[in-house]
């Protein structure tokens, strides 16, 4: 039995290039004459992960994308990277929305008999990070997000995934197959693709599937009502202590209310032994050394 892996990829506007927001026309303007599109970095991570399983376990990899005509470029790119088949889902989606996108993708994925569905954990452009989770809900699959390493046990139909948490921590998650995993952009170590493979991908067949729009999404849609250049909101901060001098209060506010001159600051002068004792005591009080 061959192992089927489905990878969902998205074509995004290349945000590395300078971008500007034209607020009157509500358009994103790129400095380049023509907008440059690229494969979403997290999706590239997902694709590379699938390729590792193809090399190691002989998995069959199908890539699919939902998007406009020019989105076919990312499928060709994926084929050049070694994907076995590519599906282009074409739809007249008047308002792009995570739930609708997920539903259109899962209609096709449900029939592909995939043991593993991979996607990037968020896109560079809309950056919602929702489609993967919604697909897992619609397909009733176990879900793991922010994956940075995957181990697949095909015989036991089991998957072990390392997730990236905050402060450098990792969580190890185990689940059965089939499953859906959202891969973090961090692990993209894309291999070099030769010109020959790129040329060959140009002439390969890409199946085109027309997908009817989702009329009544089960999840209410939040409509985009406008875009603007980034304007940071002012941060809230605690009021400076009234006991401080005017100069201290100004410094407190200008410094983002982060630090105050601490009058209670304790200074230790004495022998090395005393200093070390005092430091150790401080660590113990703060629970640093228990």
């Amino acid at each position: 039995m061959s192992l089927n892996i489905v990878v969902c990829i998205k074509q995004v506007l290349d945000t590395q290039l300078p971008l500007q927001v034209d607020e009157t026309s509500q358009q994103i303007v790129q400095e380049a004459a023509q907008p440059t599109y690229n494969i979403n970095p997290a999706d590239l991570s997902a694709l590379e992960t699938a390729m590792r399983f193809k090399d190691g376990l002989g998995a069959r990899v199908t890539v699919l994308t939902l998007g406009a005509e020019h989105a076919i470029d990312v499928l060709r790119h994926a084929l050049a990277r070694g994907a076995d088949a590519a599906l282009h889902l074409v739809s007249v989606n008047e308002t792009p929305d995570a739930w609708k996108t997920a539903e259109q993708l899962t209609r096709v994925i449900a029939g592909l008999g995939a043991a593993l569905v991979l996607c990037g954990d968020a896109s560079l452009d809309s950056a919602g990070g929702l489609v993967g989770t919604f697909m897992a809900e619609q397909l009733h699959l176990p879900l793991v997000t922010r994956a940075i390493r995957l181990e697949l046990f095909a015989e036991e139909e089991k998957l072990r995934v390392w997730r990236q948490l905050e402060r450098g921590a990792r969580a190890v998650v185990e689940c059965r197959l089939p499953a859906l995993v959202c891969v973090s952009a961090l692990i993209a170590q894309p291999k070099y693709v030769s010109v020959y493979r790129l040329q060959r991908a140009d002439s390969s067949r890409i199946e085109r599937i027309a997908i009817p729009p989702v009329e009544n999404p089960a999840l209410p849609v939040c409509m985009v009502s406008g875009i603007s250049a980034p304007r940071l909101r002012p941060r809230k901060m605690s009021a400076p202590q009234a006991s401080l001098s005017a100069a201290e209060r100004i410094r407190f506010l200008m410094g983002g209310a982060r630090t105050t001159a601490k009058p209670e600051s304790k200074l230790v002068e004495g022998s090395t032994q005393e200093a070390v004792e005092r430091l150790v005591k401080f660590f113990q009080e703060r629970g640093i050394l228990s």
Partner: protein
Amino acid sequence: METPIISVVAELDEHGLRECALEIIGEGRSLADACNGTLTVLALSHTTGDWLETLRRQDAERVVVIEHPLLAEPTLDIHTAALAQWLAVQPPALLLMSDTVNGHEVAARLAAQLRWAVVTDCLWIKGNPQSGFSAIKPTHQDKVHTTFTCPLGQPLIATLRPGAIGVEMPRGSLTTEIIRWQPALDESLIHARTVEVIPGDPRHIDLREAERIVAGGRGVRSAEDWHLIEELADALDAAVGGSRQALDLGYIPNERMIGQTGKSVKPRLYLAAGISGASHHLDGVNADALIAINRDRGAPIFSRCALGVVGDLYEILPELTRRIREMRETK
């Protein structure tokens, strides 16, 4: 008309309440005030702790502690199910969560299960339940801000980017009612189980993520002596950092420099040895506890630290490292 409810999920970690929880409680309070509503803070736990007292002091009408032994596991299937059950009992007009790794995922899962509208990683939520909420979130690698209009009359889930709002002091004028509630959870809800959480290795993680940092500066006289800093960091499970001087002298690589032109760090413990504390350096340091070791009694760092030691780091650091190692070994 019914009083609208704004709910906030306060995220806890092994140290108790996270700072981002206080941020969204403050945001929830102002949104509740704007619509004459009430604020409910939700906390998931298998046990109680000091954090409950902190939550009681916040400006919320209600704190709901959702308690279950299974919540001891960091498995998100369980946390989502517990929250979903409470939200079915008391659906709010708006549910705020922090856009942390787990907060983001639980919010998306809740939206999918409850079929509620959701906007993630917002900077700003405006409006009220009567006229509808709008949410502003950064997109296109933070180069664009997109405004979403959320459907009227439907509950909305929004996650807020940690650190974007800031924390205000609570007014403390409200009496908070504490409700303990038991969800019905069992093992069958788990589809993807978190079997282990591995803490970050302080030697390799990004300084911005480090819990503890030991930093050195000009006071270390040569690169051969830098091991004093490294050994203390190792004993304390801390990351190594340095000032611009340490970088210029070749003690540390570029990504280990802390300050205005380097990394801005936010550790729980910051130990500065041989750093005088020029504003260029200290602007990048926002530590819960700042410790300074310096020979110069007049060093500016002494006016900013929780504990200052006037002394020679060449004497103090080896002795301190030895003491800490001894204490950890005898345990």
